């Protein structure tokens, strides 16, 4: 759910492109099939534009809100090196948001509108950031495993068809490798430390496992819409495929540290090569994404206050001859 496309499956299959010029649509689809990128001023189907704005905007919000649970621990990071690294990671995440907002802007939605939609609750962000980072170990688990999930999603999306999004993701993916290493380092340090440290990281992992399983969203309904989004290279992998990739890469590394995952059914089926697990609680997922999670109110209030408090500064600096045009990116 970091950056994810979704069309209501109840929408009639022919509705998606019925108003589009068939010749332009064919040229557009041929360009994508040939592996070419779509650039901001190119002709594109209305639904392509809509899905990309929604997806890139949601991704940007996830980066900026995602820096809040970790940011909580900057003042209390254990040791100077970790404090420096955490500040740098949080700055990276905010920088990712900036890159992504710009990419979404090229599709015609100004940044002010995206900020308004985030604060009013109209736009969503990744559900995992509505949970608190209760201890230092939670930040370690976030930096390792939530960032790992984000990397799986972002690497898939970086093969997509929209030029500005792909370019932003290339920069972002390069920076994520530091986040992953930093997070792994922190988890390993605790997991190989004193019994108390081990207990801390085990408890954090137990807390974060359900949100991690929610991270990629529920199984996609196989529909004509999903197929179209895949053909347009907006959606690059199914939610289940990304979850499998993640489990395959990280469960062995977690078990390797002697840590326990709170799902007795989690195992790799040697015949199918796929991971089996207890179906995540999608009711809780829905409830939290619709506003009723432990931190939703706090996240949005903090974001709102930052916008409010900075406004007079931005206005004081604004020069009279300013003119907004859509950026090139």
């Amino acid at each position, binding site marked *: 759910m970091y950056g994810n496309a979704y069309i209501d499956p109840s929408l009639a299959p022919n509705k998606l492109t019925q108003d589009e010029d068939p010749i332009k649509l064919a040229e557009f689809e041929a360009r994508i099939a040939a592996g070419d990128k779509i650039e901001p001023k190119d002709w594109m189907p209305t639904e392509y534009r809509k899905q990309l704005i929604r997806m890139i905007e949601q991704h940007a919000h996830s980066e900026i809100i995602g820096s809040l649970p970790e940011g909580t621990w900057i003042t209390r990071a254990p040791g100077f090196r970790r404090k420096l690294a955490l500040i740098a990671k949080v700055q990276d995440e905010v920088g990712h948001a900036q890159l992504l907002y710009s990419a979404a802007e090229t599709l015609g939605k100004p940044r002010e509108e995206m900020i308004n939609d985030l604060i009013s609750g109209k736009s969503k962000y990744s559900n995992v950031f509505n949970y608190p980072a209760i201890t230092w170990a939670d930040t370690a688990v976030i930096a390792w495993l939530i960032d790992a999930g984000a990397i799986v999603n972002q690497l898939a999306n970086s093969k997509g068809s929209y030029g500005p999004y792909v370019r932003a993701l290339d920069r972002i993916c390069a920076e994520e490798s530091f986040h992953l290493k930093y997070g792994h380092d922190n988890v390993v340090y605790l997991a190989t430390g004193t019994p108390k440290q081990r207990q801390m990281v085990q408890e954090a992992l137990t807390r974060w496992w359900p949100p991690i399983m929610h991270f990629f969203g529920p199984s996609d309904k196989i529909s004509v819409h999903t197929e179209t989004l895949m053909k347009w290279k907006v959606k690059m992998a199914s939610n289940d495929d990304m979850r499998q990739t993640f489990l395959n890469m990280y469960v062995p590394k977690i078990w390797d540290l002697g840590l326990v995952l709170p799902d007795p059914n989690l195992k790799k089926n040697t015949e199918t090569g796929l991971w089996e697990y207890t179906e995540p609680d999608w009711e809780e997922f829905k409830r939290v994404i619709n506003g009723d999670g432990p931190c939703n109110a*706090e996240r949005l209030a903090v974001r709102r206050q930052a916008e409010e408090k900075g*406004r007079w500064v931005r206005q004081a600096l604004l020069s009279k001859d300013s*003119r*907004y045009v859509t950026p090139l990116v």
Partner: protein
Amino acid sequence: MKINSIDPRVNRSKIDPEKKFEEAKELDQWQTFEVFQQIKRGMHHQHVGCVHAPSPEIAFLFAKEQYARRGQCVNIWVVKSSDVFATEYEDADIFDSAPEKFHRDPSTYKVMDRIQAFKERQKS
């Protein structure tokens, strides 16, 4: 309603979660500047993205933080996005004739054949 955060800074700032947000209006986030970065002397500057800023000076500041906080960089240019003139992709066919201009291609000049033929004629 009161926010009960595990972050003491959030509790200290006593945010009212119910307060209505006065929506951001046009230019609240300023205009944009395109950023060009030179990673090494002797290389061309390269377009790397944009920043929102109220002036070129602040655009430099943000560009440094956004695009030059790791790795190498020796120079940055910023240009108002509104000052960039760009061709339309729709008109990309204006570049189509470039490969047809064989007279610009050094490999299409084959003097050796003529020289050889000339030398043969001289001998006879």
